[in-house]
């Protein structure tokens, strides 16, 4: 016998000023199932909760409905409240008469009261069909995976490791370090990027709790929070990392040549290579596309092999193949970073075909002392020092039509930084910056920008560049100075574009593998823009750094630390509580057609054989089975199931139908 207690909250005047709460309580007093009904000023307050608890005892209530704010606000509060006096917390429902009623129907007191009554009746009808549910428990694998070995990934792994937990860094390139290792100096302090990054890289590689898995890709993720099973593709290095001492002889002897991606193709590297001298691990890989031996094998020959001949430890292994390994983790941090927008889509900037129109990252390599020009700022075309440099901001950013609608956040500052560096290196060189707006929020950022203009004499021109074209040896830059309201034309020797930050080209695929959301641009989506900035909607998966959106180094490092704390909080538990509101299959009804299997996003449904007695003999038949640890309770299977064998606990067909009927019953 259902004995429902109904408690209508005034929320002070939040509800009470619009909804006649006493009348709602009166309206439902004789509604089927209702044993007790009342209203009160603040249900969530201490006396309010005591009122509910006393009523449960006094009136022998076995189900409770509270009509107040959104369940997203206080469902937990009231569940705990009824549980304290022995009611199962799932024998409780909430009717949202504040956010969905009083706050949106101000002044319409009569209609709002009627609506509140409907909402309470729906909740009562549902709660009458609620069942007692028990939370489950799942163990936790006390090890984390950080995907991406840039500064965010490294910092996050260090923070997790220093808390005493095992952590693996998965990096797809041959070395950790990420974009920060390509950058020469960092704003606003102009300290050397490598000088602050490499100690962290070394610390990560030598930390007893950190294991580096480089030159490897994320292949597949199974499982759930606390119990992920991750398949990793360890790409064939062609070098036995255990035998290799990193002496580098192979690299000095290798005759194969390839574009040096680390140096933005501004020079060549060998086919067996480490991306940069401070690479970690400092062990080379063979780039099989450009290796003479592998190229010759495609033509049925087998030449070269010089690296193998010169390797003193016999570490070269041309026969290595990709290896798939599956590891268990309790938590995953995505720190996959960003890519640089490709400006070659812009005709006005020359479709990327002028050699002296370069991107910001190109410039970082040009100005780097260990870069292709030993730090001399020269034009890529003729290696002459530029006398006039034009810098263009917002290339691909804030351009919803051709590029991205968002601001890339870092460009204003790195452009200012690069402008000052040009002025430092080449004091005679004139620098112009075309900009839409200057955005410099951040500690000491605006001060830096002001110095760029005032002390370094960099000329800022507000306006967009309409065209860049080659004129003899020079580049003509045409644009409008919107402050002066006139066209300007500058004969430049070099143009540096502040290209937007974009997600990794395969970020959407990555998100799908891990099972997290991504936005229209491909950035990973946090669970809440303000209150859940490092969490995702998938429990146990966290975000660090620019994979979530454009970010500079300090922000990436801060977010990495935040993600690490969340990971540690998770790994510190021995067991995780699991929600009981999961799907369940009634095997008596299930035909075993298996159509529910592919719709489950968590691969929680499998077909299994059961034995049954039928007409005097034992038969075997297939039925669907839901792994309640994997199931997250979306309900996709319940609609796929024609016979209604699959049902979602707490949101059963009968419960939803009861709500629909309760609402329609009030239609006259």
């Amino acid at each position, binding site marked *: 016998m259902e004995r429902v207690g109904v408690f209508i909250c005034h929320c002070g005047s939040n509800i009470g000023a619009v909804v006649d709460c006493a009348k709602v309580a009166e309206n439902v007093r004789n509604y089927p199932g209702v044993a007790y009904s009342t209203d009160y000023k603040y249900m969530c307050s201490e006396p309010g909760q005591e009122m509910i608890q006393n009523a449960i005892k006094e009136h022998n209530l076995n189900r409770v409905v509270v009509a107040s704010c959104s369940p997203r606000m206080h469902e937990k509060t009231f569940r705990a409240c009824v549980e304290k006096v022995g009611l199962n917390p799932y024998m409780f429902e909430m009717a949202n008469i504040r956010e969905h009623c009083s706050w949106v129907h101000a002044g319409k007191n009569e209609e709002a009261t009627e609506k509140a009554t409907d909402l309470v009746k729906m909740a009562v009808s549902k709660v009458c069909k609620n069942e007692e549910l028990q939370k489950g428990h799942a163990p936790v694998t006390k090890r984390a995976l950080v995907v991406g070995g840039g500064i965010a990934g490294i910092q996050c792994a260090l923070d997790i490791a220093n808390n005493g937990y095992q952590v693996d860094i998965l990096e797809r390139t041959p070395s950790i370090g990420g974009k920060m290792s390509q950058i020469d100096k960092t704003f606003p302090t102009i300290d050397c990027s490598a000088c602050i990054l490499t100690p962290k890289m070394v610390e990560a590689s030598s930390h007893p709790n950190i294991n580096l898995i480089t030159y490897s890709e994320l292949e597949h993720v199974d499982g759930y929070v606390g119990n992920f099973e991750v398949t990793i593709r360890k790409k064939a290095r062609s070098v036995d990392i255990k035998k290799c001492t990193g002496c580098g002889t192979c690299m000095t002897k290798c005759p194969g040549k390839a574009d040096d991606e680390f140096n933005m193709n501004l020079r060549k590297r060998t086919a067996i290579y480490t991306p940069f001298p401070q690479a970690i691990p400092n062990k080379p890989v063979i780039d099989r596309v450009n290796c003479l031996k592998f190229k010759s094998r495609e033509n049925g020959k087998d030449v070269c092999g010089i690296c193998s001949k010169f390797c003193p430890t016999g570490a070269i292994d041309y026969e290595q193949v990709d290896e798939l390994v599956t590891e268990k983790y309790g938590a995953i941090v995505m720190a996959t970073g960003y890519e640089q927008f490709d400006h070659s889509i812009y005709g006005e900037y020359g479709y990327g075909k002028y050699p002296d129109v370069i991107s910001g990252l190109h410039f970082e390599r040009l100005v780097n002392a260990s870069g292709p020009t030993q730090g001399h700022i020269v034009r890529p075309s003729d290696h002459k020092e530029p006398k006039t440099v034009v810098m263009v901001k917002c290339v691909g950013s804030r351009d919803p039509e051709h590029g991205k609608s968002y601001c890339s956040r870092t460009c204003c500052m790195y452009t200012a930084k690069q402008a000052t560096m040009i002025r430092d290196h080449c004091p005679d060189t004139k620098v112009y910056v075309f900009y839409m707006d200057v955005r410099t929020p951040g500690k000491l950022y605006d001060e830096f920008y002001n110095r760029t203009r005032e002390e370094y004499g960099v000329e800022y021109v507000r306006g967009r560049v309409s065209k860049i074209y080659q004129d003899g040896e020079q580049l003509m830059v045409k644009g409008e100075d919107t402050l002066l309201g006139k066209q300007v034309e500058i004969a430049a020797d070099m143009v540096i574009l502040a290209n937007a930050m974009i997600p990794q080209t395969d970020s959407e695929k990555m998100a799908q593998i891990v099972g997290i959301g991504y936005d229209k641009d491909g950035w990973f989506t946090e669970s809440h823009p303000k209150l859940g900035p490092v969490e995702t909607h998938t429990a146990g998966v966290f975000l660090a750094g620019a994979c979530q959106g454009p970010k500079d180094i300090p922000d990436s490092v801060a977010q990495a630390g935040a993600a690490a704390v969340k990971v540690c909080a998770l790994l510190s538990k021995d067991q995780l509580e699991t929600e009981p509101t999961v799907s369940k299959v009634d095997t008596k009804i299930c*035909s075993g*057609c298996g159509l529910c299997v592919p719709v489950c996003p968590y691969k929680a449904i499998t077909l299994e054989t059961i034995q049954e007695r039928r007409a005097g003999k034992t038969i075997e038949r297939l039925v669907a089975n839901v792994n309640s640890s994997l199931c997250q309770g979306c309900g996709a299977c319940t609609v796929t199931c024609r*016979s209604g064998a699959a049902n979602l606990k707490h949101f059963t067909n*009968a419960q939803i*139908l009861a709500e629909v009927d309760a609402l329609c019953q009030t239609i006259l």
Partner: protein
Amino acid sequence: MSDIQSEMRATAKQLLESGEATVVIGWEKGTMPYNSTPVMIRSAADVDKLIWDEYCQQNLSTYLIDFIYTEDKVAIFAKGCDTRAYNRLIQDKRISADKCIVIGVPCSGMKSAKAAAKLPEGAEVPMSKACKECRYPNPVVFDRKIGQDVTPWCTEKDFSDVEAIEAMDQDAKAAFWKEQYTKCIRCYACRNICPACNCTNCIFDQSASGWQSKDINASENQFYGVTRAFHVAGRCIECGQCEMVCPSDVPIMLMNKKFIKDIDTLFGAYEAGLETEGPVPLSHYEVSDPEEFM
């Protein structure tokens, strides 16, 4: 046809005598000249009951479900539509291929028993509607085959009847369906005969589930009609058995074909029952599916 019929009998005899099959499902002559009804033959002595004429419209594949828990090895005569139903049942894991021997029989289209019943004896009987629109008269899967393949007389799906309803205004549509479903007596014959309606426990048999009341009226009957059409959406093989058995002449295929048409238009052309693997339209999605809900 008599050649095929004698070959059917010979095949059945051989299968039963050799023990390759313990039961053969085919058609026998019914009580009226325009009735040919299913028959299950267990003894070689009975094979002469088997017939093949222009009224063998009934899809036999659904009977295979009756044998899933028996020790039988079942041979079944199967027209194009029966084989699509067979594939459908395999894909739904309701029958197992290694218990069945499918003897394909190309079909030239069956006559409408319903029309025949209304016509004077000897009058020309038209082909049944489902057969007129059939694109797969030849078995799509078989272990053996009797007779020669025929050339399909339809290559495209014919949605003219669906389009005629779509062209009506909303009130006319509602009135049309209300009239049709007022006739429905909810005997569930359409469900029972349907090879896609193969659940062990149909929701319409679970009165306690609360899905439907036992009232017979246009509203409840339409709930039944739309729900059943939705349940077979993407799985209907267009054999038209539902309409064939409906005692109230409800145009059930008009519902099923509406879903078929929309699935084809929205998600790409799909033919149920041609394969036993691969995604079923409603257990599958594409990120690029049409977006109308922004």
